[in-house]
């Protein structure tokens, strides 16, 4: 039995080496994705362009603008004297923020009654960037103005934040482990469904079934190579994450390997299930993209937080296996939590996988 399975495995590897499409998914895709999510896709805002309008060109404003410019968040690209139309000015300079001081700012600042008004225009088109800028600019200007007057702000409460798990707040730490969920799914679900439907399309699956090979030997032989490739890719992601992006596994690496194996199993089961539903490669592809890839990227919490979605979509996220795997992998890699806490997602993941395998075996039998 083992010899026959090995024969099928070798045959499958030959297929893989011959097919550029499969090779692209196995080799090129993980490398490019790692590079993109590790280096290019970062949510960290830096050097946001700011325009200052100060009709008086006072020293006070220059000091404040120097303070704004000195932060990594903002970059003052110019101080203008006139602003007949501040919105047009903002647009013209492609600035995200315009801070407009009054002509008597220096005097108002020191007046006994009231205080100086400062108007801030924020380009809020990108809501996320707008929120961060709005939260940051007010305290910054107030602080700089108080420093000029050598005053302390009467402050009732000081908040001391303590950031856990990702203290430097780097996006790569969040994205790169999450990438495992996508790449493993792509290899396991997409490639297995394509390879099985290809044999169906060519009619070679029927030939295999009339050969002395047993159905389970065929399935195992076709699936094992992809399991192996997925495992290797998974290890590679962690190694690259370690040496290029400084991502260390805070928790138990063995637990991570075990949970990844369960996720790969569930993904393979999805691939198997799709191949029972599709008669050719084209329809397999048509099912794989919207049914597995899209939800994994969008509805799993990979980038977009689930808690911000409407309730209906939140229910859908419960049936997406990647939702559970992301909880597990981020739990182990970033938080360093153990099996006791992660038991629930691990069990659910396993249950989804088993359910899919049972259903697809039933459907497989019916068809033959």
């Amino acid at each position, binding site marked *: 039995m083992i010899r026959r399975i090995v024969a099928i495995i070798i045959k499958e590897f030959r297929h893989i080496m011959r097919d550029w499409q499969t090779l692209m998914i196995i080799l090129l895709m993980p490398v490019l994705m790692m590079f993109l999510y590790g280096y290019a896709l970062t949510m960290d805002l830096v050097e946001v362009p700011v325009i200052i309008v100060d009709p008086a060109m006072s020293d006070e404003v220059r000091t404040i603008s120097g303070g704004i410019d000195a932060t990594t968040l903002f970059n003052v690209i110019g101080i203008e004297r006139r602003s007949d139309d501040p919105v047009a000015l903002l647009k013209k300079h492609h600035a995200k923020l315009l801070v407009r001081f009054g002509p008597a700012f220096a005097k108002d600042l020191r007046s*006994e009654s009231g205080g100086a008004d400062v108007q801030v225009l924020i380009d809020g088109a990108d809501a996320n960037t707008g929120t961060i800028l709005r939260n940051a600019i007010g305290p910054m200007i107030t602080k700089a103005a108080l420093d000029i007057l050598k005053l302390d702000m009467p402050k009732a409460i000081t908040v001391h934040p303590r950031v856990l798990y990702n203290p430097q707040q780097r996006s790569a730490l969040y994205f790169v482990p999450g990438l495992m969920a996508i790449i493993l799914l792509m290899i396991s679900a997409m490639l297995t469904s394509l390879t099985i439907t290809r044999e169906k399309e060519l009619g070679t699956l029927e030939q295999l079934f009339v050969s002395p090979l047993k159905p389970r030997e065929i399935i195992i032989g076709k699936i094992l190579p992809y399991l192996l490739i997925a495992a290797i890719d998974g290890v590679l992601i962690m190694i690259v994450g370690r040496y290029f992006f400084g991502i260390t596994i805070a928790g138990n690496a063995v637990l991570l390997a075990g949970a990844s194996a369960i996720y790969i199993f569930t993904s393979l089961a999805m691939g198997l299930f799709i191949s029972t539903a599709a008669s050719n490669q084209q329809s397999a592809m048509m099912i794989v993209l919207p049914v597995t890839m899209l939800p994994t990227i969008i509805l799993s919490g990979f980038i977009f937080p689930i808690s911000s979605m409407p309730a209906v979509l939140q229910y859908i996220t419960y049936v997406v296996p990647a939702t559970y795997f992301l909880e597990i992998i981020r739990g182990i890699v970033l938080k360093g939590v153990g099996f006791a*806490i992660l038991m629930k997602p691990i069990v659910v993941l396993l249950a989804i996988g088993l359910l899919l395998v049972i259903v697809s075996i039933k459907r497989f039998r019916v068809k033959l």
Partner: protein
Amino acid sequence: MKLIILMIWKEFLHLRNDKLSIKLMIFPVIAQVFIMGYALTTDVKHTPVTVLDNSQSLSSRSLISSIRANELFDFKPESSSFNEVRDRIDRGDVRLGMIIPKNFENDLKNGTGANIQIVIDGQDANSSNVSSGYLNAIVNLWGSTYLKKQAELMGKDIDVLIPVKVNPVILFNPLLKSSWYMVPALVVLLITMVTSLLTGLSIVKEKEKGTLEQLMVTPVKPIHLILGKTIPYLLIGFVELCIFIVLVLLWFGIPFKGSFFVLLLFAAIYMMSSLGIGILTSTIARTPQQVLFLIWFVLIFFILLSGFFIPVENMPQWVQNITIINPVKFFMFAVRELCLKGTSLNDMLPQLYNLAIIGIVVFFASVLSFHRRVS
């Protein structure tokens, strides 16, 4: 000319009977509008939060109730020890923990100022940054209201003590809704899918059936063929664009401030690139399945590097330099500018030129490679 019209007519007849293409025209619309439109949100809402109140005083209860009343947070049961807070963050039950010290009320009253600690689940840098900013703002608001009341009791007006008042005005998207930014961008994905996928599939199918060779021996020239294969999808692209702009923007209540003709102009120039990509893939691929795969593969990278959900300005400089060849980026920029800001064509000329250069290069490259393949 007559030949081209006939070719276009033939293409529409084909389309009517082609289930896959019809699915590709309808499914993405539904998926994008009803799933992506709601799911692709960078808003940070309903952050689960717990409080550890060591003070158990009137002031601490008042502060807690102001957080409880805020919709940005989901208030979970209070914790009874620091270890419990930490444990609940580990379990993922809450993402923020606020710890109020024992002497909170005393520190407030004797004027030294109170301290509170917040513990943040920092895995997702963006969400944790925004949600801790919100919590900070609530606490500060509560604090300044408290100071004001105290001062009033003593007959003073605290506002005089604050030398600056910063009045932020949010332009273009006053409620800072992320759907206003994300939904218009979806039309770009939609048009790209329809034009590049359908063109590529349609050519490859003729290749597969051998009808492409049959066409080549008729008086139809390659250029007729290309125009006949692209113009129908260009038209479909325009129709979907109009439907999208009218229905979807109304559904989500998003404004369209710019000129519709400028949008059509950008769309027409953009479609040169997307149709070109469709033709190019059809010369490489041999089966419809390979077309699907190749276009999906290429689009992933174009979309990720377009500023769709992560601003291009955040990327390292050398990556930004690469994005200059990405047509999706320029069209998406234009759509967003037109919807939210009503930017005039004059202010977007650099983007238009860039898009035009990319479009011309891609389209002619695809025509050349198609020409070489068929002859």
